[in-house]
């Protein structure tokens, strides 16, 4: 049963981010893969990922939130404010075009930019942790800008504490 749910979640995310030609790149290893529940249940992780959108993207070497990113985070904040059973970990990621340590620090900046925005939109700071993966967990694995653009991301990973 768990496998089926995970497979479904991978499919959703693949559609969402327009998984290009990288060939069978399942989400795994990092925490930003696999989610629980049905996309039809508006209080589920799967719904959050598929309909609200769990990630925002950044420009090269930037942690500034674009207008598009702020819109996405407004949606996340609205959802989180009405689904108080969830805490979140914001994962910051970087593309491979940088040194390891710098990318860890850059990912942390990105995660924190997302966190600060969500707090500003009313989500309690005690519900939000941050984490940087630097360049360790690319979601797209080609060495082209179209992949890098998907990898420079902040991902809001839900953790249901309601049970």
């Amino acid at each position: 049963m768990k496998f089926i749910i995970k497979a479904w979640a991978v499919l959703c995310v693949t559609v969402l981010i327009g998984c290009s030609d990288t060939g069978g790149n399942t989400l795994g290893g990092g925490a930003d893969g696999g989610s629980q529940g049905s996309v039809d249940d508006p209080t589920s992780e799967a719904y959050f990922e598929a309909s609200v959108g769990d990630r925002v993207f950044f420009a090269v070497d930037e942690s500034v939130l674009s207008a598009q990113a702020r819109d996405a985070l407004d949606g996340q904040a609205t959802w989180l404010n009405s689904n108080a059973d969830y805490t979140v970990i914001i994962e910051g990621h970087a593309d491979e075009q940088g040194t390891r340590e710098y990318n860890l620090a850059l990912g942390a900046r990105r995660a924190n930019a997302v966190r600060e925005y969500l707090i500003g939109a009313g989500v309690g700071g005690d519900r939000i942790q941050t984490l940087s993966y630097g360049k360790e967990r690319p979601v797209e694995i080609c060495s082209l800008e179209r992949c890098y653009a998907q990898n420079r991301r902040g991902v809001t990973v839900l953790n249901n504490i309601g049970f």
Partner: protein
Amino acid sequence: MRILILLTSLLLATAAVSAPLRIKITEGVVEPLPFAAPSFIAENAAGAEYAKMLVDVVAQDLTGSGLFRAIPEAAHISKITSFSSPVQYSDWKAINAQALITGTVSGSATGQITVKFRIYDVFAGAELGKGLRFTGSADGWRRMAHKVADVVYGRITGESGYFDSRVVFVSETGRKGARKKRLAIMDYDGANVQYLTDSASIVLAPRFSPTGDRVLYTSYETGFPHIYLLDVGSVKRKVLQNSAGTMSFAPRFAPNGKSVVYSLEQGGNTDIYLMNLSSGKSRRLTNAASIETAPSFSPDGSQIVFESDRSGSQQLYVMSASGGSPKRISFGDGRYGTPVWSPRGDMIAFTKQNKGRFHIGVMRVDGSKERLLTASFLDEGPTWSPNGRVIMFTRETQGASGAASLYSVDISGRNLKPVKTPDGASDPAWSPLGR
């Protein structure tokens, strides 16, 4: 790098300081010095097993340095059948062997082997230094070979060898995007790989203690990146810094082994801290809204080089080991990161990113005399050989099937070559001298 082969006559045979056969390692073009190392003589049956293997490793070490060239045994005219008989110099001259290495191996019933060896300056017609004898467990035969090669390298270059050294690194398996990483340690030449952690969590950037018996690294064991200290012998580890809401990474030992400099991230901002290992207390060394990371001590412990984007892009800075205002040292095009102070104290190795390419480079500690040693899609993370003559680093190939592996290069930029590892490999750190 230029090799000056000074074949002066052996007038001062007893003066250890003026060896006649000498490679001088400086800038310029190099012609590897030809040497002959015939199979060592087995003094008994227990030694026979090691005689050929041992001399092969000696030859690989010397040849691998790029400074020497082995003359194949098939070309040898004389055979060495006795360790004590006089050497037929003319036979070795005839094949242009400038140095000759002879030796014996004997084994004992208790699993020990004893290696004796001599080095000859063929054209001077004399022994180069005194013969030496090493005894150790047969299991450690490769290490004994490295020690022999270190003596040869030392007597001919006048500098300490780096062959009896180890490398701690991150072994990588699995697809890009879902890489499994674990800490591993091996001899500098890729032999004797042992794993220090499993691959349950991401591990990054291990660094040796000054005595080589402990390793600092970053692990996601708790789900969040934090710095750990691992004892190489027992493989026991402990977390050094895991305060909630923070990330710690990029740890490196101070030269006295008593403190650790590292990066701590809080609220999205990364600064450099110094932890006293006995008290566990940390002191903040930088305090800026920019990224400050990848700190590395000068060998005398008085200064720290690190990277910062305080100017708007990643650049290198030097500050006092107690903190205070840093001085920028990198001013060329592009971005500079992962600085590492050389063991000689005279240079800093770094990663440079410019126009979509990555380079490993070196500069003087004041930022002058920058030289790029490599160029590729992604080279990063230099580490110095214990004698400061060679740099090892990570090279990652591009694309969906891209993989990381280790390379080494002379600080002259010559002798670029892969280092053999069983799987993918990244983040090498070379051990200090004498392990």
